[in-house]
């Protein structure tokens, strides 16, 4: 396949995809290997890796770190994916409208976008989660709210450059409606940069979620990597494994997603394609 041929040229992107697949497998098989609730007290607290049947050790309350990582992978991927989907949807809608219509619609929408961009995103996310009750929904909303302006800017730029192209003018001349022009003529032509930006945004979303959970603003009923690190923070010197393994999981996942994003960019961006 053409796309795969282009993607394969970037070796590190293939490597990233392999890691990402492993994370997906881990998330998918979590219930199989660790059927118990990751919050359950499985054995002796503070067991080192390999001791008492804990492959990656246990934390201060005797929860299995390995089970937490497996179940946490689900949380991370789900929140990363959902929050990005919401942000991209919102960003494409607002950016598309602003770029396509221009004029006062553009002015208004872009000023609103700028207001969102002036607030540091992590602090803004904390604020939102703190105002709404910490739950999986509020975390997703918070991440989406701080992430969409970047997409909106990107999509607006693409729409502005495409809306005056001759093929779009040809659609106006046959009397095609605005919605149809936006969705069927312009949008397919700017999917590549949106996909690339979206893939990188998943990584940021996972980081924000981990940060929120670390600060105790995560959903208390769902295990996540950030929560695990937060729980192990106080015993970092006596039980290093509690923080370290979830940390490595975050590092590898975010790295893998970034590599995949780079690879997508190389494969989908026609300007880069010729620089072999």
């Amino acid at each position, binding site marked *: 396949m053409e796309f795969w041929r282009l993607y394969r040229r970037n070796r590190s992107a293939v490597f990233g995809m392999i890691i990402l697949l492993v994370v997906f497998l881990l998330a998918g098989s979590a219930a199989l290997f660790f059927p118990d609730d990751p919050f359950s007290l499985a054995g002796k607290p503070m067991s080192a890796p390999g001791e008492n049947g804990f492959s990656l050790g246990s934390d201060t309350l005797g929860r299995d770190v390995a089970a937490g990582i497996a179940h946490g992978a689900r949380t991370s991927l789900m929140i990363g994916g959902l929050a990005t989907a919401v942000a991209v949807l919102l960003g494409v809608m607002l950016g598309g409208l602003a770029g396509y219509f221009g004029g006062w619609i553009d002015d208004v929408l872009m000023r609103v976008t700028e207001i969102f961009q002036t607030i540091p995103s992590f602090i803004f996310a904390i604020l939102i989660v703190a105002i709404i009750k910490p739950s999986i929904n509020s975390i997703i909303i918070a991440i989406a709210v701080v992430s969409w302006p970047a997409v909106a800017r990107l999509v607006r730029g693409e729409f502005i450059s495409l809306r005056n192209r001759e093929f779009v003018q040809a659609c106006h*001349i046959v009397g095609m409606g605005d919605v149809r022009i936006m969705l069927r003529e312009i949008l397919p032509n700017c999917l590549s940069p949106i996909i690339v930006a979206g893939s990188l945004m998943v990584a940021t979303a996972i980081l924000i979620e981990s940060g929120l959970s670390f600060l105790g603003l995560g959903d208390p009923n769902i295990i996540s990597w950030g929560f695990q690190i937060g729980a192990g923070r106080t015993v970092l010197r006596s039980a290093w494994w509690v923080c370290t393994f979830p940390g490595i999981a975050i590092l590898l996942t975010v790295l893998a997603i970034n590599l995949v994003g780079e690879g997508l960019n190389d494969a989908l961006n026609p300007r880069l394609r010729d620089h072999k």
Partner: protein
Amino acid sequence: MTAINPPLLDISQLFVRLPAGAERDHAVEDVSYTLANNEILCLVGESGSGKSITARAIMGLLPAPHVRVDQGKILFNGEDLTQANAARLRQVRGSEISMIFQEPMTALNPVLTIGQQIDEVIRFHANLTKQERRERALKQIADVHLPDPERIIKAYPHELSGGQRQRAMIAMALAMEPQILIADEPTTALDVTTQAQILKLIKELQTNHDTGVLFITHDFGVVADIADRVAVMQNGQIVEIDVTDKVLNNPQHPYTKSLIKAVPSLVPRPARKLSEQKELVVKDLTKTYRSGGRFFGFGKSEHVVHATDSVNIQLHKGETLGVVGESGSGKSTLARCIVRLIDAEAGQILYQDVDLRPLNRAAMRPYRSKIQMVFQDPYASLNPRSKVGRIIADGPIILGSSPADAEKRAREMLEIVGLDVRAYDRYPHEFSGGQRQRIGIARALALDPEILVADEPVSALDVSIQAQILELLAEIREELQLSMIFITHDLRVAAQVCDRIAVMKLGKVVEEGLTADLFEKAQHPYTRELLSAVPGRDWLPNKGAIT
């Protein structure tokens, strides 16, 4: 030529290799030619014929390492430039051989003044004091007939017009009095009157300085005006090389013959009988562009441009009306106002006694199919993500055809414009420029229009393809009884296509008349200026021995 006096430039059996996977193995294959002092050699050919690559090979400017000289010699005063090292090539470039490019805006550095850029060339190659360099730069600027050298030397490229920038480029290229000047389509981006001036300037400087000029062009009119000898290139090979008169008036190679045959003649074709019935009347159409100086969309604009200024034109039934003019004359704006892509602020566009100008989108819809447009750039006018079939069928579907009918119609249209019906399921990138333009025409015809507005439909195409598209337009015009508004900057094309011509300048129609009348006895000085600037106007193609 004798052994003691080798030619200035002697290229023998030059091969330039292309990277693997390119269209052909060699960009340039077994090319040999010579260039003498005080001679203009024109390299002519269509896009992709390898004419620019040979010039770049001389300058050592090939995009290494993928494209490189494979075999052959480039002897410059007996020295083989293919063997020269980078330092020697740097020395040669700019002082002994220099080059001017197609687009002076991108070839000049926008953040340096013209004076600084000329100074840079002189400083690199000659050991002169600052004052001497400045005097030399001023003299160069005066030599290319730029007004007020003292001002130009301090000007930035964006402060000059296109023609002035090209003059500045020439001043820079000739600063060190090179023995060879390579000109790569130096007038292609310029208006026809400016082009005529630049050609005259190159010829004048070449005679004064005894320079050998290698002039690359695709335009046989320019060749007729300027060349001493001509080399015709096709697919990387020189198919014919001889003195200008022989190549133009008695070409030997079939490819040369076909190229020259495709050049439209300046003699208007016989007038057709015109219908009295008026299809479209444009009255006092005015469109003004405003920009700058605004805050949040409020307040007064700083720059006001009258793109069209009280334009009046009439289109009779079945007639082709040419709208000619240079860039910025407002001809494209006029076309876009008529098809209602742009809203004009005053005037009338009367179609069957209905004024289309004030209609909103819904009210305009029934008239959309009546007036259709063909665009200039075949690469930008088709959505790269849509299949050809959908591009053509979309229009009928929007206007209420069932998808099955629209598909049938689209296939019919493909046949009418001379494309394989299998094109229906392909994407635009699988087609060449000429084929894409056919698809664009099919799209316009699918709605069964009565008026076709064609905005420079052939100016992005090679001359042989251009001839085919013009022929196609003439055929469908007869067959479908179309009235056509044909926008062009090329008077040769206008002479062959249009029944009547309106000449535009700075947003106004300065003259309008039957094609033959306009070419024979133009009234307005601007029309006469345009006509006299057409390159190669004294050369009549298609006459003589061409069969």
